[in-house]
Every structure is written in C-alpha cells, then in structure tokens.
C-alpha cells in the first residue's frame, strides 16, 4: 500500500510524467481552443431570440462548468492529502486554486456582459450569480491562506480543511436554480432526455467544454510542476535540472 503511494507520490516521476503529457496536450488544447473560438464566434447561427449575444455561451458556460468541477478536484485532492497524508495531493490542491479563481472570474465577467443585452442588467443578485461570486471568494481565500503560511506543508493541510468546508457551498450553487426562482435558465444540456439546444449550437458548446477541461488539466500540471520544483528545491533531481537548464 505505502510503496504504491510512494511511487505515485514520487516528485521526479510526477514531474517527468506531467512534462511528457504537457508536451502534446498543451499544443492540442491551444489549437482546439482556437478552433472552438472561431467556430462559436463566426460559424454558428445566432439564436432566434437573443441574436448574436448568445455567442458568449461558448466561453461563459465552459468556464463556469470547469470552475465548479475544479472546486471538486481541489476539495477531493484536499481530502486525500488530509486522510492519506499524500504530499502530491497537497501540490495538486494548491495548483487548482488560482486556475479555479481565473475561470470563475471569466464566468462572472462574461455572464455580466451577457446579462446586459439579454436581461437588461449587468448584475443581478440572483442565486446562481451570487453563489458563483462566493465561489470566487472561496478560491481566493484558499490562495490567501496558502500564501500566509510559511510552512508549506501546514499551508496545504489548512487549505485542504478550508476547501472541504467550502464544499458545503457547492450543492447550494448547483441546487440554487431549483430552490429559488432565478433568471437563470435550467440546464440546456441534459444527459437524460433530449437537449433543448439545437445540435448546430450544441456541438461547438460541447467542444468548448471539453477544451476547457483540457485547458484546466494543462494549467494544473504546469502549476504542479512549478510547485514541485520549489518544494523540492534542495533535492538532487532539482539541482540537476537547474544545472541542465543553465547549460
């Protein structure tokens, strides 16, 4: 059991694997992102009611979906780090926070811009928007708490506790549309039953969601690599790497 964790938790191994995944995943993701953006912006028809403003959906929905999923990843990594005392889970958790914060920020800003032509207002204190704002605060809180600790191992544990406590918020975000009446439309993409979005609009949206997941993974791996180096600064493999880098 422990030896398995040790292998999985071996920093140089993880650094190398993450590097080789990134070598192909990052370019693929960036190309997919460009394709998705052009597709959504220029090659889809406008909505019969909202006109062209709905094109923001191709960036708003993926960002929001992945921002929420990112919180789950962070909290689960936190739980793993607390329960099994796995250092790599700590690193992964820490790496999630800034990415999640950025995606939540994108979701909020694009939503606000979309809201103006659609609802007639930049901002409403609707349940889902408010929960999204709270999600941003939760992410920023994790970042701030991590930075405040000198002992990075303790920082990881403290952030894990905080993100687990924040998990209580996530079901409220998901359920808020059902619990309270709000301006937000119910989910358009349904896995059971028929989607209420036309296929010509659904495919680029799904494309973008997958792309954002890939982008999240890329950023996560890159952040983890950077974090690993700093944590393992005194070990031989990092020293060797720095020497190679110098040469």
């Amino acid at each position, binding site marked *: 059991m422990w030896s398995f964790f040790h292998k999985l938790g071996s920093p140089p191994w993880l650094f190398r694997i993450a590097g080789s995944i990134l070598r192909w995943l990052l370019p693929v993701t960036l190309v997919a992102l460009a394709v998705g953006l052009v597709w959504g912006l220029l090659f889809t028809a406008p909505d019969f009611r909202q006109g062209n403003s709905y094109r923001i959906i191709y960036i708003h929905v993926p960002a929001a979906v992945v921002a929420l999923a990112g919180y789950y990843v962070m909290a689960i990594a936190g739980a793993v780090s607390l329960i099994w005392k796995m250092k790599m889970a700590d690193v992964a958790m820490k790496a999630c926070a800034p990415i999640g914060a950025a995606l939540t920020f994108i979701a909020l800003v694009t939503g606000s811009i979309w809201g103006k032509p659609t609802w007639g207002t930049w901002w409403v204190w609707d349940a889902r928007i408010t929960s999204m704002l709270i999600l941003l605060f939760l992410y920023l809180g994790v970042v701030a708490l991590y930075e405040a600790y000198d002992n990075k191992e303790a920082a990881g544990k*403290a952030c894990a506790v*905080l993100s687990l*406590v924040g998990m209580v918020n996530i079901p409220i975000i998901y359920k808020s549309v059902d619990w309270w009446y709000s301006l937000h439309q119910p989910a358009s993409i349904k896995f059971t039953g028929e989607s209420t979005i036309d296929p010509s609009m659904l495919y680029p949206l799904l494309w973008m969601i997958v792309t954002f997941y890939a982008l999240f993974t890329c950023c996560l791996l890159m952040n983890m690599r950077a974090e690993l180096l700093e944590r393992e600064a005194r070990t031989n493999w990092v020293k060797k790497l720095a020497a190679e880098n110098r040469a």
Partner: protein
Amino acid sequence: MSAPAEAPATGAFCLALLRRQLTLAARRPIEIGNPLLFFAMVVALFPLGLGPAPDKLAGFAPGILWIIALLSNLLTSETVFRSDFEDGSLEQLLLAPQPLFMSVLAYIGAHWLTTGLLLALVSPVFALMINLPGQAIGALVASLLLGTAVLSLVGGIGAALTVGLKRGGMLISLLILPFYMPVLIFGSAAVQNAVLGTPAVPYLAILGAMLCLAIALAPLAIAAGLRISVDA
C-alpha cells in the same frame, strides 16, 4: 502499577472548559463590552451616513443591524484561540484524551455566550435607535440568537486555521465572510419579513438548520485546523 488512570468524562471536561473560558471572560469585562460598544457606535454611523430620515432608516434597519452583528462577531472570532495558542494551553488541549471536537464546542459555546447572546439581548435598544418597527424586535432577537451561534462556529474555523499566523486578522475576514453570507441573507430576511408582517418562522427554521449543520461539521474543521496550527 495502580489501575489504569481514567480521565474525566467528556461532558465533565467540557463543562470545566466552559467555566474556565467564562471565568477568563468575566475577569476581562472590557473585552465583553467592546463588541457591544462597537455595535452601538456603528449603529450611530448609519444615520450620519444615510441621513436621519426615520422611514429611510427603518427600511434599511434589518440589514444594518445584521451586518453590524456580523462584523462585531468577525472582530471577536479571531481571539477565540489566540491566547491559548500563545501560552501553550492549546497544545495541552490537543493532547487531552477527550475528543477535541467536543472540547472546541466548549470554547465556541463560551464565545457565543459572551458575544452573540449578549448582542442579541441588547439589540432591541439599538433597533429602536434606527427606527426598526416594534413588531420586528422579536424576530431580530430570535434571528440573532440563532445566527450569531452559526457565526461563532464558522468564525471558529477561521480562527483555528489562522491562529498560528502572525497577521491573521485580515485573512480571517477573507476566509470566513463567504460562509457568513447565507446567514446574513436569512437573518436579515427574517427581520425584513417581520417588518412587513409576513411570517419570519421559515427563515428562522433555515437559520436553525444552518446552526444544526454548523454544530455537526464546524467542530471537526476547527479540530483539524487547530492540529495544523499547533503543528505548523
């Protein structure tokens, strides 16, 4: 060797802790008075900032009172474990054979008794200062009784996570304000409804639900946070 030593029962231990915390608070009466004074002074700020028109103030009164209660709780939450951390009592508490999640409840209970409870009891006076209609006083006191208990529990999590940090004060606000927001929404909604003459009980029930959830989960997080802070 004599028979294995038996530690006192958890309940007795928690009561002893509660007495200890209350005695400590009672020997520093100024620290109990400060949040109340803060409450009174911030209440006085609103008529100065918004203008003293009574009906305008009355409209904002539920929100104003709740926000101040929240802020004064925020200011005191930071101190719950601070002195115990500094003099080494906290590490002794962690070593106690009784479950830590119960003993931290005693700390939080003492904090609530010396801040939230008192605040709820004196809040009618402040409510009158900003023209909160009389029929809402009951809902105000009830919502503050329930809500400040949630605030104390949630604030305890922030306090536990930041007690080992030199500059925890600002950070604790960032960490726990997101969790205070639902309490604020339902607390002020309860008062608002009482002002309008609609039933406040559903809102109080939601606050009660939050309190139950907080009692169930916050002690675990506080205990974990304290172990991390002492270890850091």
